């Protein structure tokens, strides 16, 4: 109905789409679009590489920690060790030395004796090796006096050895008849010509190691820094024995921990060789021989532990013991249930995440119980009921600012207010929950407000139109529609809280806590803090535990985020 006046000449001249200029413009646009697409793909590729590397690294490190080796063995349960007070009372049975019983059984099985061997076996077995046996005996005291088959937990070193951190073991059959001089102690094994190959290869290996060592020493000595030059000193001490081996053309080759170990497995025992010639091997029996009879060619073995003893955690005797029990078929690899059922421990094989997991759950329960009602109510009030003035504006700005405050500040606040002023217990999930609630509250308020705002105003109008009060309109219609969004925001906030470490450090949830917390005021730690604690420990097994705990934490986070997505999809409504 408006008059359209056409001005003469106002129409632009017809565009020439075939001109060189126009074509160049089109080409330029195509190039720019293609370039943009490639930027996007490149960004995705880089992200994927990072992500895959991260996850692969964690999985490779962490997955072995989900299994644990244990030794199944027949243990004769003697009354004096299992029941020190001799009255079959539960207290007495509990205080029995079951690990000692297991240790004795292993010693008997291997046929070893003496203080040194006992020490080695103690290191192979976990300090909790007798726990299964203790449980069995406490449950059924009639087992005392019988021989009981039990599963003994192996130590972290032994476990890591089986998981492949130990050494490659090379075996070759003895080509000639061999005659040991004795069954235990210092032994010479005479086997004419049988060791010639080892003599040659060990000498060669010594020469190679020597060369590497000399190169390293030269590198250190060439430095202008005194501290670096000092590093060469301990290396120089390793030189003479290696030189002796490499240069020695003599009949007797003295072996050294810096080259591979050579052992002779004969007559059911094993001899660690310290001097070797082509015909004679002299050494100590790590596992005693059954007889001192001559063994025919092919019935005995030459064994090489390739990794030098100095370079590994388990020494030759432990390798000999572990290798023996494994060959006997007594070692089994099973799911590491202890990892999920026990609290923290100084022994890696006995440390579990249950305590941290329960601590995290209790903390999050407190956080959720506080955050959800307060956050949602605050959001509803601010979004729907509060009058718009400078005061509500101020509150809104501050809520947004709070969401950006570093979490450690909330920890300091918790320390100052909850612990020092209100005197709440240190290290307790209730305080952790309060602090994390402060941290998550702004997130939930912001997410809830966004969710409320996303509900079309027509729904509220419709409710008002049929005579619902403002509050009825909000609670009957707007809130249910905003709920999926609020839930999503809450779950993501909770996931954020679950991964939070810094504020928990400040309120003392960073402690070595063995007991699984039973309530909100018990001392507890949380999953990310547990990861932080373990990552600080020197044992290789704790490195694996750290990665395994990260896997568990990531799993929980994935599940929570998955739940958020599912909720959103499930309750998403169209209008």
């Amino acid at each position: 109905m408006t008059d359209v006046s056409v001005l003469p000449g106002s129409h632009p001249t017809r565009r020439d789409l075939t001109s060189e200029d126009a074509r160049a413009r089109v080409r330029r646009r195509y190039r720019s679009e293609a370039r943009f697409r490639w930027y996007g793909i490149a960004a995705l590729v880089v992200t994927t590489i990072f992500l895959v590397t991260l996850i692969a690294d964690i999985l490779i490190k962490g997955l072995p920690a989900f299994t644990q080796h244990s030794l199944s063995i027949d243990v004769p349960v003697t009354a004096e060790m299992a029941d020190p007070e001799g009255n079959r009372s539960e207290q007495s049975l509990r205080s029995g030395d079951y690990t000692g019983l297991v240790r004795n059984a292993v010693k008997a099985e291997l046929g070893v004796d003496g203080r040194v061997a006992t020490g080695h076996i103690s290191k192979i077995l976990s300090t909790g090796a007798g726990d299964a046996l203790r449980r069995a005996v406490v449950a059924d005291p009639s087992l005392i006096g019988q021989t009981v088959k039990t599963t003994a937990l192996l130590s972290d070193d032994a476990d890591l050895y089986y998981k492949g951190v130990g050494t490659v073991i090379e075996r070759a059959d003895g080509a000639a008849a061999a005659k040991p001089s004795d069954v235990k102690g210092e032994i010479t094994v005479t086997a004419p010509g049988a060791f010639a190959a080892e003599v040659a290869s060990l000498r060669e290996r010594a020469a190679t190691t020597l060369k590497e060592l000399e190169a390293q020493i030269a590198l250190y000595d060439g430095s202008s820094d005194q501290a670096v030059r000092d590093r060469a000193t301990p290396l120089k001490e390793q030189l003479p024995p290696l030189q002796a081996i490499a240069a020695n053309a003599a009949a007797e080759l003295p072996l050294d921990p810096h080259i591979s170990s050579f052992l002779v497995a004969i007559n059911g025992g094993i001899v660690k060789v310290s001097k070797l010639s082509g015909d004679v091997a002299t050494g100590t029996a790590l596992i005693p021989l059954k007889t001192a009879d001559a063994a025919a060619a092919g019935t005995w073995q030459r064994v090489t532990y390739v990794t030098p003893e100095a370079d590994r955690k388990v020494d030759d005797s432990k390798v000999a013991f572990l290798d023996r029990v494994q060959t006997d078929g007594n070692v089994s690899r099973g799911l590491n249930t202890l990892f999920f059922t026990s609290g923290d421990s100084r022994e890696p094989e006995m440390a579990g995440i249950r305590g941290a997991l329960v601590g995290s759950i209790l903390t999050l329960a407190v956080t959720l119980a506080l955050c959800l009602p307060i956050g949602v109510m605050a959001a509803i009030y601010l979004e729907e009921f509060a009058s718009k003035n400078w005061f509500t504006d101020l509150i809104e700005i501050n809520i947004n600012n709070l969401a950006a405050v570093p979490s450690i500040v909330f920890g300091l606040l918790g320390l100052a207010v909850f612990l020092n002023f209100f005197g709440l217990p240190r290290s307790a999930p209730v305080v952790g929950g309060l602090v994390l609630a402060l941290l998550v509250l702004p997130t939930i308020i912001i997410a809830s407000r966004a969710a409320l705002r996303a509900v079309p105003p027509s729904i509220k109008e419709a409710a008002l139109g049929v005579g619902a009060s403002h509050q009825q309109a909000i609670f009957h219609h707007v809130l249910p529609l905003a709920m999926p969004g609020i839930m999503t925001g809450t779950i993501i906030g909770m996931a954020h809280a679950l991964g939070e470490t810094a504020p928990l450090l400040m309120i003392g949830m960073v402690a070595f806590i063995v007991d699984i917390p039973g309530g909100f005021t018990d001392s507890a730690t949380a999953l990310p803090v547990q990861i932080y604690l373990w990552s600080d420990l020197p044992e290789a097994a704790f490195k694996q535990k750290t990665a395994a705990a990260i896997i568990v934490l990531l799993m929980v986070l994935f599940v929570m985020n998955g739940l958020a997505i599912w909720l959103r999809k499930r309750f998403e409504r169209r209008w």
Partner: protein
Amino acid sequence: MDMMTAHQTRSLTEAASAANPKVVAREVEVYYGEKRALNKVSVDVPDRGVMAFIGPSGCGKSTFLRCINRMNDTISTCRVTGKITIEDQDIYDPELDVVQLRARVGMVFQKPNPFPKSIFENVAYGPRIHGLAKSKADLEVLVQDSLQKASLWNEVKDRLHESGTGLSGGQQQRLCIARAIAVSPDVILMDEPCSALDPIATARVEELIDELRNNFCIIIVTHSMQQAARVSQRTAFFHLGTLVEEGATQTIFTNPTDQRTQDYITGRFG
């Protein structure tokens, strides 16, 4: 304002003339902040029948409509002066409960806005919060009655518990009308109820409005002059925040007294 106020020009011979008007507005002015959106509107709406508000966009007809159930209260900057009474009760009386008022003055919006709940729940919501049904059986009767009055019953009786948002646009709008009449209002306000609908759905809704006019006082805002001519008995023409002319629909469309009305209905501007 050299124009005489519209209600003075009203033909007194009209059958529908409001001897006993339902809604009476006097000197109603609406301000959005400093801006005046309505200027001294005075109009009587008869007890039964359909009154149409027509006028170009931004003329204040919707603003005036939303004054009648105080929907403008939800806009914080909006201020209303003057007097509106429904059955001699001043609706801007501070003593009056807005929620009670809105139960008496139903509203149907431009875009169909059923609750994302079942068809049954859509209709049952109003009666439930106002306690209009004593029992579940009562409620079911009321819902059926409302849906029948909105001539939607036959289409939805087998799927009462399916979502109201799953209906077609026209059905949704009739559901909204059923929802409005379920609380037995005195007045039903309709703010361009057919502007989001196709012609067939529009025809259905217009038929429905025609049926409802015997039982309700209906005020409809529309952009379509044909629609106003079809469904209404009385028409008011708004222009730039003032009520230019009000009278029997036939008179307004065939023999308007004001030049601006003449120009608008003949399509000179708008």
